[in-house]
């Protein structure tokens, strides 16, 4: 395991107590987010995010599928996420860990519940053919706060993705010379706080995650409403802390939307 040394832990705790952090940020400051889109021409949309040292690659593929029985006139969003061992010596090969399942599901929830994907516009022929929108995330470098970075990467890939053409005769997708955008009507944002000592810090690094007692992710939709919440870690939050984190998340979401394409 890529252990955070005891001395680093002590330093982090002392700094946070004084509202400061190892990388120079205040406790309520997000790291710089750099987004590069179009890095994977074979995908219908793609983006590499660098949130501090955390790097996640997101790609979108649209393929022809059949609708779910209970939603026969809607396309399907499916989000996958790999915490691949390239990104951290803490990640292992093999079947998806519970952590990577949680990661994928929370990113999915933030985007899905924000309502920004017009799944009805992804219907080709009701009851028969719809577009399956696969959003896959690959963590390449793990320096903490995968969820928020994953939502940003996923949103950037979605916002720049182009629709394939549909060949009615062969019932297959065509992937050349695409122009029409994927029906995405807004920007969902995830904002995560961690609790260290009695302080709540935003956008934790991996060293901070190693010593946090718990974390709290808020998904924010375009109307500044809460569209998803995931509490993680063992310790608990008071309702005062929760309300403060939600309010703070709404503030951060306004800034983070600006880095999206």
């Amino acid at each position, binding site marked *: 395991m890529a252990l955070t040394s005891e001395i680093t832990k002590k330093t982090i705790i002392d700094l946070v107590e004084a509202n400061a952090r190892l990388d120079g940020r205040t406790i309520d400051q997000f790291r710089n987010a750099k987004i590069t889109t179009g890095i994977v021409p074979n995908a219908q949309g793609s983006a590499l995010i660098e949130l501090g040292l955390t790097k996640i690659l997101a790609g979108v593929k649209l393929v022809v599928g059949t609708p779910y029985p209970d939603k026969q006139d809607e396309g399907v969003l499916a989000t996958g996420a790999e915490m691949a061992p390239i990104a951290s010596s803490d990640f292992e090969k093999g079947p998806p860990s519970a952590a990577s399942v*949680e990661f994928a599901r929370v990113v999915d929830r933030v985007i899905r519940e924000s309502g920004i994907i017009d799944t009805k516009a992804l219907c080709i022929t009701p009851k028969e053919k719809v577009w399956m929108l696969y959003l896959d995330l690959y963590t390449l470098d793990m320096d903490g706060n995968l969820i928020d970075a994953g939502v940003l990467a996923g949103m950037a890939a979605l916002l720049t993705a182009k629709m394939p053409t549909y060949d009615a005769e062969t019932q297959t997708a065509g992937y050349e010379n695409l122009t029409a955008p994927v029906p995405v009507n807004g920007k969902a944002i995830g904002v995560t706080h961690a609790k260290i000592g009695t302080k709540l810090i935003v956008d934790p690094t991996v060293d901070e995650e190693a010593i946090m007692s718990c974390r709290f992710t808020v998904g924010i939709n375009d109307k500044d409403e809460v569209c998803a919440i*995931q509490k993680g870690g063992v310790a*608990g*939050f008071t309702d005062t802390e*929760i309300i403060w984190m939600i309010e703070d998340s709404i503030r951060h979401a306004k800034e983070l939307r600006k880095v999206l394409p």
Partner: protein
Amino acid sequence: MDKPAWLIKNGIRLDGRTPGDVRPMKMIAGFLDKADGSCYIECGKTKVVVGVHGPREVHPKHEMQDTKALVRCTYNMESFSVDSERRRPGLDRRSTEISKVSAQALEAAILVERFPKTAIDIFMEVIQADASTRVTALTAASVALADAGIPMKDMVTAVSFGKLYGENGEEVVAVDMDKPEDNFGLADCAVAYMPNIDQFTLMQMDGNLKIDEMRAGMAMAKKACREIYEMQKAAIKRRYE
């Protein structure tokens, strides 16, 4: 199930409850013989059996923790527990996520440092699913842990809250979502709460809630949890009568 015209009308929900009412609950501590602690629970039509094994030896060894007990949770739905077609047996991604956050929600209450190098395994078997299964299971798990004699700082009580639409388009926050409310409601939030320590140890929400609705929901959830807490204590007491 077809979408109803409203989920709440004149402050009364489809099944007759007011927004703050939880469904009728029933808990039987010590339901199982071979588990170290157990609880059978009903919340409305939702039914769950929880069994606790431990503190016991850790397998596989490499998961052992030197300074505290390893708390593991397995949330599982029986293949026939759902109202739709048969569920494929085994753990899916949803179960994996729920198992993870449930273990954390319970560990928050357990005095884990008293049992280093051991495992406490909590198995939740959902027999009949009528929404709010994870919170119902958490409430039962806390009783099962007490039944197993595992010392805790506080009980973990759990409930869901959400937002219902009314006859005239009004939106109402309410606790303990049942199946139609879960399927068609505007938001669903599962919480686990320690009533004495006054902290939330689990929170998972989807849907759309304004911050004031979050405030209202959390307040209603805390009130409901205190009622459930009394039922938990009564269930444990009955066990020793």
